């Protein structure tokens, strides 16, 4: 083996890589927020909606969870323009990530909702709260708290899988790494460093999500 590793090329392009990492963080964070919203709405629909809504949510969840993310991206970016819905690469990526996360997170949130003791709901009903009020004030907060670790893992999986959106020319860390690797012919070095950046982002997200948990669910509480 007489290949000479040249990591100084990577070092020269580090600002561009970091910029890519920032784009990945922005894209993922936006998708996490929107995806959680979709998930909460779906979880509500599945646990309290009329049968057709339940059936629809179940179909959405099963369809997304049993097909590859890459194919979902292709459908949003390549197939939808045929029926007149034209999205830019980054928008298509964001939509695909949101739809994907929404399905996985909906199942997680639903599990949280079902873990709420039924007495809580009955007590709320006895106080005269309406359905949506019960969901908003009694159920959703403790439900999210219960399943928070699973949600956080799903968020991080989403951030990692965002690397495949580079295939539809969405700009983020992997896309920038691809172009740098092909112009400098230092593929191994660039991908190696980009992998390290993803690892750092995964650890960063884990710490950040932990901080959010503390700020939302723990602060000012004695129990």
């Amino acid at each position, binding site marked *: 083996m007489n290949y000479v590793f040249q990591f100084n090329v990577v070092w020269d392009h580090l600002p561009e890589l970091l910029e890519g990492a920032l784009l990945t963080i922005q894209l993922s964070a936006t998708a996490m927020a929107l995806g959680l919203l979709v998930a909460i709405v779906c979880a509500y629909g599945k646990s309290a909606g009329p049968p057709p809504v339940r059936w629809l949510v179940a179909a959405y969840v099963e369809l997304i969870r049993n097909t*590859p*993310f*890459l*194919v979902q991206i*292709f*459908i949003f970016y390549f197939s939808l323009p045929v029926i007149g819905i034209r999205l830019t690469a980054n928008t298509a990526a964001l939509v695909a990530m949101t739809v994907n996360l929404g399905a996985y997170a909906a199942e997680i949130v639903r*599990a949280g909702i*079902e873990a709420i003791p039924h007495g809580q709901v009955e007590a709320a009903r006895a106080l005269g709260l309406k359905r949506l009020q019960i969901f908003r004030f009694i159920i959703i907060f403790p439900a999210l708290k219960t399943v928070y670790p699973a949600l956080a893992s799903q968020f991080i999986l989403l951030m990692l899988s*965002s690397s495949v959106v580079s295939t539809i020319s969405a700009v983020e860390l992997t896309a920038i790494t691809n172009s740098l690797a092909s112009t400098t012919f230092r593929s191994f070095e660039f*991908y190696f460093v980009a992998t390290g950046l993803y690892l750092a982002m995964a650890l960063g997200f884990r710490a950040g999500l932990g901080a959010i948990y503390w700020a939302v669910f723990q602060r000012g509480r004695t129990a």
Partner: protein
Amino acid sequence: MGRSFGTGEFLFLLKAIPSTLLLSLGALAGGAIVGLFVAILRIVPSRPLRWLATSYIGLFQGTPVLMQLFVTYYGLAVLFKIQVDAWPAVLLAFSLYSGAFLGEIWRGSIEAIPRAQWEAAECLSLGFPKQLWYVILLQAARISIPPTVGFAVQLIKNTSIAAIIGFVELTRAGQLMTNATFEPMIVYPIVAALYFILCWPLSLVAQTLERHIDAALGIKQHF
């Protein structure tokens, strides 16, 4: 005008399914070997060995599969000074990836075995390897079946990522047919449907088995 999407094109997609399945099975087999080592290293008495296995899992669960694929692909190219065939690189990358996930799943199964089983084995003056082999592993294997099947679904979906480095499987076949027919609105939904047909039954099996085993272990059912 180019080709339109007909029976021949559909057959082309069908013929790509064996590659997807073969890659998934190969990676599952490779991952099983790696995963068994990882799971056992996670529970051995020696602290450095446990740390090694933990870092391995952290590394592969904290980086995108696409990056693992790129690093393996270009890493093998560097090692052997030639551009290698896609098969070995893809198989190696997916085996290492599966090893991390299976290792973690199986560690969980081993730890779900009651402590008293270990103690009873120790009372029979079996050493650690014999305790593991004769008493623990077979019981743990039963618990590990549902999550392992669940992971197989994840693996089948993730093998689509191999399409990005040009490995011809179902997703890549879909890309090729889209390029030939310019009909992404037909091709990608069919590709998604084919994945769904592969994955959904496995998902259902995993769910059913989980319910059975939870019932057998006396775990309270919420759903």
